[in-house]
């Protein structure tokens, strides 16, 4: 059965539902194309007509996850993710006031991320942030050149479940270790999942400094984090 025929059958069976599905499909398309205003208008229209905002939200989250998978295969690239992510946030401005927590909803886990002190490389950290958001995490991005104390304060303030420290230079890797030492001295080593990454880091380095999680890249990181936090 070709897709047009199956669409027709579904439409014939439930025309109103199919209209909603098509509209959500349109919102997803507009999000990918970065058409924030059009997407937001359409979302408002759908809500005014009584569409469940969770249904729209689920569609958008699914689309971001698909984009993430395509990015991992280099079928799309970072700008595509950034544009879609930015539009997603614009749509959320319309959607969020209509979203009421469902019984089945879990509170999203918060992850504090940043590039360590002395290091100004942020692309890897940014990709991690986008991929985490696409997978439903709440992300607190501290930017670059982040002092170990700042990581700790932000982890406490945001009740983070995990802290991600990126280092792209061998001379800034010690600041990953410094954060872990600070946590241990404060008796908070077991409070957060400490995750490290960056080109010069390795599983051996991770083990040596007592990090909880190391990953080769952003994609592996998200998978490992989901498994570690049971998400």
């Amino acid at each position, binding site marked *: 059965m070709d897709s047009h025929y199956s669409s027709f059958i579904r439409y014939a069976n439930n025309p109103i539902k199919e209209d909603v599905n098509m509209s959500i499909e349109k919102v997803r398309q507009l999000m990918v194309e970065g058409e924030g205003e059009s997407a937001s208008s359409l979302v408002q229209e759908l809500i005014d007509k009584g569409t469940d905002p969770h249904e729209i939200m689920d569609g958008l989250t699914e689309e971001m996850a698909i984009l993430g998978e395509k*990015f991992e295969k280099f079928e799309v*690239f970072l*700008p595509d993710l950034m544009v879609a992510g*930015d539009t997603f946030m614009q749509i959320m401005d319309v959607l969020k006031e209509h979203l009421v927590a469902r019984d089945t909803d879990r509170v999203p886990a918060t992850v504090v991320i940043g590039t360590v002190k002395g290091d100004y*490389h942020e692309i890897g950290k940014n*990709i991690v942030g986008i991929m985490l958001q696409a997978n439903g995490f709440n992300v607190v991005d501290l930017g670059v050149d982040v002092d170990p104390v700042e990581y700790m304060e932000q982890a406490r303030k945001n009740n983070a479940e995990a802290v991600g420290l990126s280092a792209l230079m*061998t*001379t800034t890797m010690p600041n990953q270790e410094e954060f872990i030492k600070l946590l241990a001295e404060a008796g908070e080593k077991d409070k957060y999942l400490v995750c490290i990454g960056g080109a*010069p880091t390795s599983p051996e380095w991770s083990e040596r400094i007592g990090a909880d999680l190391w990953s080769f*890249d952003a994609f592996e990181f998200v998978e490992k984090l989901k498994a570690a936090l049971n998400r």
Partner: protein
Amino acid sequence: MSTFRMWEVFSKVEDGPFYKNQNEWMMKSFIPEMRRVVKEHDIKWDGKTIVNCDDDLADRLWAAAKDFFISVGVYHADHHRVMKFTESEVDEVLYTKQPSYMVGAGHDQRWLRVRSVEDSEKRPFHLFSPDANFSTDIHKKACMAYLKEPMLDGLCAPLIEDFMGRKATSQSPTEVAAAMEHAMNLRDAQRLVGKPDVWTVSVGTAETDQAQIAAANPAWGVRQSHLDGRMVSILTEMTTNDAMLNKSLHYRSYGNVFGNLCGAIFGGHAGGTEATAVLQTAYNIQGACLYGSNWALNFPFHLKWQSTTTRALLWIQSMLSQAMSRNSNLIYLNNLFANAGPGTDQLYWECANHAIATESSGGNPWGAATCRNKFTDHATPLESRFYHECSEASFKMRFDRAKADEVCQKIMEKYESLIPTDNYGKTIQEVYDMERLVPHQEYLDQYYRMKDELNKMGVEFPY
């Protein structure tokens, strides 16, 4: 915008367009402008070619890169403003750039210069560089091992991992001291192998501006003028900060023939292959205009593998080389980052492909970095020797681009499927006799075997 204009350049940060952070600038300027120039200048890759043979495409890439740089400018992360250059300013820089420098001194003097596409007169400049950390206890010996190489025109020495048992840490006294020790070791090593005045690009251990300044000393450290080179980075992507501008000021006042270290990320903010080629080419213009750098080191690399030897990345190196050699006086070198490590056949294939893909396009080889730059002591002069000999062979045989592409396609078949594997090989201590600083016979045999393999593919080595 020659060196004397540097203060006019620095002042651009005072009144450039304001963006609250890099992300806002990316979304409003960088990404849409990149999409525009790729489309308007019709930059396309067929997904297979390694060495470009299309002159018009190379010229369009140059035009796209210049267009992009002028329209986007440079984001200054500390001031949150964009430093923009007019077309007239860019043209002045490009016109007044010197196409050649005599670097080093005495019997170690060499020309560092722009080469043309399929150049039959100017041999490549062979810059040896492991781009890797070495343990402090073998650092000086490792420098000597590299300096012994006969093909070497210049050296960017290995980095030092620790200082007095403490890990060298950015912005701390350990970094400053490690940078000083690095410079001292290098000077000693040069004298001990009889190449006291060879041009060195110093010192990689110094990541920060203060460590670079601390290592500069004509008596024991980094030397002035044409005797040594230095580097200042472009931050990803098209971004700078005060620390980088400090470095460029110091290098200029110290008189060094210094370079711009630039690596666009394939799959990163630019996007795919074509856009990464535009960005990488634009970086060369940016370095000349912003820092007043005398040359550029190009290392466009793969976001996932952190290497420069994939099919797409080799095409990018070939393209940017031709775009610049055909349209400018900008001196540049092409940086190899291999996936595999010492003692593996894969590393030799990657070295050969990078050398051959860039030479006929007008490039100068810089390498060889191994193991995705991940591991301490995982690099040796042996693969660098092979890498530079491949480049020299391509030059001596007067490979045209079509022939180079034919050979590169064959070599690519040998390692393309292996790229995702972790084939990190051996350490220098395993491959080399660290007393006599020569490779163990087993690894020397492998080196000769790989030369034979290349020879069967039509690559004739000069010796």
